[in-house]
């Protein structure tokens, strides 16, 4: 046999045999491997949500899957969000369990992480995960003291960044979950609603779009009461529904830098403008959604989309800080910097306060600009 031919024949033969063997092994092990993968998720879901009998999954994006957990009767018992975000060393994949309202955490499981062994890796320790039970996002990390309320958890000593990362991912999970059960047309029958209303009834109900707290947490209205016949922009609704109770029409004005401006029309001809702004804070980027009411661009609410500032935030002063903006027509100014200042800085974080004020003021500028483009 000629060498060239022999080469081809031998190599082909080896490849064929190898392929055959692998085919057999693969088909034998495939179901088992599949099952393992499923089991891992299922076990995690069962750990974070009680009484799971069956579940449905819904992929939101590449990194996020929502598990709708149901009991034997088929009633929703909670949600699990399988989500991946970045940690200190690499990706952290976790399953966050939420109650039926999608607000309160029922548990947390870390599925995958490559954090520093013995340090950041300790996010998998029970005491850390247990802290999340019953917490209501957005959560803040505290260091060197005990958490004081349901929005705080304690950091792992020496692994603040990993702790923060987990919290950030959990907060994100909640936001994503909210977008699923909040904005999308509900796949559930009306009877499921009581869950929702109970949570709303805890807070003073507002018949009109009153200024609400800036945080995405407590006082949010899960869903617009009535969905108009004309299909509203879901992205717009997702952001604006936190601040405007009755939305007749919602419109997203895409901006070139992908920081959107939203316009929502309420009853009685009210017109609300939400403007996304982004800037560099002391520690990291700050991204806000500022919702204003026309015509004088009075602040209705501010949503913190991204912020990782120092610890001075989250100690309670901050909610006082944020509520200062509500009801003020823009632009606003820092007290002490001009005669007519309206906003008190957070003590010890003047820099951040200043940045926030600048961003809020910028929101108005952007909104006006967007509205003119809309008209033209």
């Amino acid at each position, binding site marked *: 046999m000629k060498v060239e031919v022999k080469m081809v024949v031998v190599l082909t033969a080896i490849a064929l045999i190898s392929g055959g063997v692998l085919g057999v092994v693969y088909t034998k092990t495939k179901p088992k491997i599949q099952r393992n993968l499923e089991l891992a998720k299922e076990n995690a879901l069962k750990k974070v949500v009680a009484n799971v009998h069956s579940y449905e999954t819904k992929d939101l994006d590449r990194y996020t899957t929502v598990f709708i957990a149901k009991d034997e009767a088929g009633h929703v018992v909670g949600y699990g969000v399988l989500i991946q975000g970045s940690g*200190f060393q690499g990706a952290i994949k976790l399953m966050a369990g939420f109650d039926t309202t999608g607000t309160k955490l029922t548990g947390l499981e870390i599925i995958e992480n490559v954090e*520093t062994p013995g*340090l950041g890796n300790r996010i998998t320790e029970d005491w850390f995960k247990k802290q999340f039970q019953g917490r209501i996002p957005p959560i803040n990390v505290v260091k*060197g003291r005990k958490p004081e309320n349901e929005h705080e958890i304690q950091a792992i*000593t*020496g692994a603040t*960044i990993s702790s923060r990362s987990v919290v950030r991912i959990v907060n994100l999970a909640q936001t994503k979950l909210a977008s699923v059960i909040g904005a999308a047309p509900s796949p559930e029958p009306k009877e499921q609603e009581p869950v929702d209303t109970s949570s709303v009834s805890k807070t003073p109900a507002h018949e009109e779009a009153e200024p609400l707290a800036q945080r995405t947490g407590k006082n949010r209205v899960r869903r617009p009461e009535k969905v108009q016949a004309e299909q509203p922009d879901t992205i717009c609704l997702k952001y604006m529904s936190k601040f405007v109770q009755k939305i007749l029409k919602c419109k997203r004005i895409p901006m070139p830098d992908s920081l959107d401006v939203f316009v929502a029309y309420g009853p009685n001809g009210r017109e609300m403008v939400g403007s996304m702004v982004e800037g560099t804070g*002391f*520690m990291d980027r700050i991204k806000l959604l500022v919702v204003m009411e026309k015509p004088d661009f009075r602040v209705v609410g501010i949503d913190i989309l991204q912020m990782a500032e*120092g*610890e*001075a935030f989250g100690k309670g002063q901050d909610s006082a800080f944020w509520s200062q903006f509500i009801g003020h027509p823009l632009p606003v100014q820092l007290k002490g910097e001009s005669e007519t200042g309206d906003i008190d800085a957070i003590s*010890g*974080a*003047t*820099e*951040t306060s*200043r940045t926030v004020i600048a961003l809020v003021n910028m929101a108005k500028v952007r909104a006006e600009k967007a509205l003119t483009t809309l008209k033209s």
Partner: protein
Amino acid sequence: MPKKQEERKLLIITPSPHIKSRADTRKVMWTTALSLLPPVVAGVYFFGFHALLLIIVCVVSAVASEWLFLKARNKDTSAAFDGSAVITGILLALVLPPKLPLWMGAVGAAFGIIFGKQVFGGLGYNIFNPALIGRAFLMAAFPVALTTWVKPFYWRFPPDAITTATPLALAKFSHQMTPYLKLFWGNVGGSIGETSAFAILIGGGFLIARKIIDWTLTASYVGTVFVLGGILWLINPQKYPDPLFHVLAGGLLLGAFYMITDLVTSPLTRKGRIAYGILAGILVIIIRLWGGYPEGVMFSILIANAFRPWIDRIFVPRRFGTGRRPGGKR
């Protein structure tokens, strides 16, 4: 008579020169060790008896591990007492948290000596500063213990209120500035020997006066941090700490006088040393402002250490009678 005496004894033949300056490695080392006294005293004053114990443990461990290693390799064990191991021990202790368990200090000193110095061949051959190698190892091994700081005079506080953050951490993570005077005298949280700028300036000034360290290296390192920190501060005074704070807070001065000037691991020529100081200074600012850690002195020096052979290769003096056209004044 004299002739007879001479006959009895042979004349000694040695190459020239036949006279010698009084400089001597041991003397250099012990003088350096002596110059560490002010920071040691300040550290013990602020952080108490445990700090003293930690310094002693580090020194004993450093000398003992050097002795054992030399013994195991059948080398001259007297090299363990040439003072360099003592310096390593003291320096390591000075960059450790005051309440660090003693055994950790011992482990760090032994590691620094063995893996930072002896495996390279002993004094003169190490690439990295042994004390900093010891600290980097401890930092990697016991990150929590190495970042737990206590207040000065912590024994006066209730046991649950003795921990604090370093001025740099306060600035970086909580926007809190520490008064300069406190930084100058050292009445702040931090490593045993790094807090008191005053004590370091005394000891370092002594070293410069004795010409054991090159003041230009210290100056280029501190100067770079000051200038670069200053530029950033002028650009955004709200976001970046001011340059004086950069210099006084953290371990910059200790590093500038005692670590980066380590003879063995710094470049040979003055120009090289200036470049080396600038490189390390830039690294300090980068790590402090944009890195994960609040302090960057240790890593800046270790990284600069790695660049040292390269710097030595670039900065060679212009040989006499080369490169310049003959001719000149008159």
